């Protein structure tokens, strides 16, 4: 397990000539990142090829070697000017999910036309296409194939593209690696540090970040901003930070607090970005032990950066919005089931006894359903379970949603069961 040095905003493109299937995907696949659904393979080739320029710009930006104190401005300044302030990063598709069987241009033919596009490719295949997919995989054309008949298509797709997105980010991160000091490289490989940083990024609900070697830390932002600076210090570097604060005339009391790992100060970033006023102190948190890594968060307001929300990617939802949407779908599906007489009538009486499949069964839908049918009560409930499993923030959002709206008791029972399963883990 590694910690990618950059995490670009996630963007997934689905291509299938069957509009109905795309529509199902649009309704059901997670919405906390940008998505695009394209029904014409040729359109897809055109759109993805256009990204080439943006990818090259990003690679250039990340490849510029750092110089030790020769320039007044460094990587942080360049990132803010050319990356966080730039809309083109929202047009970087990290994962393409394409159907194999399409008339005109097949999924593989489409992929062959994208030789210069650096994202990862997932091929959706029918029963008869397995051999084609395997040879495409061996030829390096695709990185994964998923049969459409997979029992749990939703989960296969989400875990598939999450993994692919991670790979894309790790690859981009290699461009930043040369700027790291040997000590930084070493510490970023330690499992405790990887876990601590992952957790911190999740807690901050960042949809993107970039690691900077000098000053050491992460610039990142949520989908609705603002830009934040997560400054990182090791036990050893606290002393050098204190030395800088002494040179900058900080109070002795504050300097001692920094030395002891209670506060961090953003003196270097403040200087580089020529921020107004004095450098700030923020509470430090020990995010990993042995080796010790301290982190503190600073909001960087009033910088010319562009969040995905401001840019207007309206498909993106926060955990709260996503949970609202899922609970709403769940209630609708439940009502439809009641109308069709499909669901146990007892549930409608407010009977909270779970006579229907228990929370474990929920994770694998009945085989009688068409495999790619990702709608229906069970399917929505399963999406809810997968989404809730993403983070503590999603679980918290779900409890808030349950408090803000009325939910039929039967539905509530299922949702509580899902939450209980998560808490048990």
């Amino acid at each position: 397990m590694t910690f990618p040095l950059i995490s670009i905003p996630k963007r997934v493109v689905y291509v299938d000539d069957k509009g109905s299937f795309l529509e199902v995907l649009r309704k059901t696949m997670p919405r906390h990142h940008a998505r695009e659904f394209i029904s014409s393979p040729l359109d897809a080739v055109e759109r993805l090829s256009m990204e080439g320029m943006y990818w090259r710009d990003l690679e250039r930006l990340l490849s510029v070697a750092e110089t030790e104190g020769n320039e007044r401005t460094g990587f942080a300044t360049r990132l803010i000017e050319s990356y966080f302030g730039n809309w083109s990063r929202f047009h970087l598709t990290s994962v393409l999910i394409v159907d194999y069987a399409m008339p005109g241009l097949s999924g593989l033919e489409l992929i062959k036309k994208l030789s210069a596009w650096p994202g990862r490719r997932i091929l959706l295949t029918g029963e008869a296409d397995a051999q084609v997919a395997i040879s495409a995989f061996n030829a390096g054309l695709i990185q994964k194939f998923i049969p459409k008949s997979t029992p749990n298509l939703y989960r296969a797709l989400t875990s598939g593209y999450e993994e692919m997105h991670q790979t894309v980010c790790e690859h981009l991160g290699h461009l930043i690696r040369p700027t790291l000091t040997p000590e930084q490289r070493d510490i970023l490989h330690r499992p405790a540090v990887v876990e601590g940083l992952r957790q911190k990024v999740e807690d901050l609900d960042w949809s993107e970040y970039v690691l900077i070697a000098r000053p050491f830390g992460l610039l990142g932002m949520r989908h609705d901003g603002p830009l934040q600076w997560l400054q990182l210090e090791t036990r050893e570097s606290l002393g050098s930070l204190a030395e800088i604060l002494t040179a900058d005339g900080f109070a002795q009391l504050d300097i001692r607090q920094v030395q002891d790992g209670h506060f961090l100060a953003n003196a270097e970033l403040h200087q580089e970005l020529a921020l107004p006023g004095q450098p700030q102190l923020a509470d430090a948190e020990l995010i990993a032990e042995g080796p010790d890594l301290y982190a503190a968060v600073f909001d960087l307001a009033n910088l010319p950066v562009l969040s995905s929300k401001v840019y207007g990617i309206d498909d993106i939802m926060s955990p709260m919005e996503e949970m609202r949407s899922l609970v709403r779908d769940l209630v609708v599906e439940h009502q439809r089931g009641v109308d069709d007489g499909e669901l146990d009538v007892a549930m409608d009486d407010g009977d909270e006894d779970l006579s229907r499949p228990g929370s474990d069964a929920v994770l694998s839908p009945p085989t009688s359903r068409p495999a790619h049918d990702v709608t229906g009560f069970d399917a929505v409930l399963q999406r809810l379970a997968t989404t809730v499993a993403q983070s503590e923030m999603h679980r918290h959002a779900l409890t808030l949603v349950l408090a803000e709206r009325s939910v039929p008791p039967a539905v509530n029972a299922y949702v509580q069961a899902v939450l209980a399963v998560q808490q048990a883990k």
Partner: protein
Amino acid sequence: MLEHDLADDYVTDDWDKSSYLPEWLSSISHLGVKALVVLGPNPFGAPGDREVFTVYPRQHTDAAVMLCRSDAYGAAWRASKSPLVGWSNLATLEPSPAGWPDRFKSAGLASFVRVEMPLPMDRAFECFVFCDEEITDRSKAAELSYAMMSTWPVLKEAVTSAKLEISERERESLVAAADGLTAKQTADRMNCTERTVTHHWGNVMRKTRTPNRVAAVLRVTLFGLI
């Protein structure tokens, strides 16, 4: 009249805080000196950019700004290898569209001596001392120049420190940079961490508004700070 905000763009010094100027002027008042104007390079500008470093008494601020903005002396004068020292009576000057001679005349001044103090990179300080009587022979001008030159080191410190102030540690780090040391070597010399060295350098780049270390070293050299 020039608007005051315009004057403020050119006059950025803090001479009010320095008790040295009135003292300095009274020390040569027996020579009939009534006013002093020092023009110097804009620390952050191109070679030709000059600004008013000092004007005393302050009632001559507008006239000094007019002189500063005119094409009198300055970069072109230096480029033509003109003398470092010279004197003129305001009455005999060609009428200037910049209007500064008239402005000084109407304030009761009659003549001035100009002494140039060269700096690296085509820059210079230009000191003008104004008298209320016309200068009729060279010996008076020589005496005034002598007085200026002999007190210049002290005067210079008073007029430059207000423009650019760097700490002792920052100065040491720049000397090391000028000696060609790397951050690591500088850290060893200064007995501190490399991180602090780059921070010192960054501070000076920010103060001198320069984009890199070489330019920062040159800027502080310009002012004789290292």
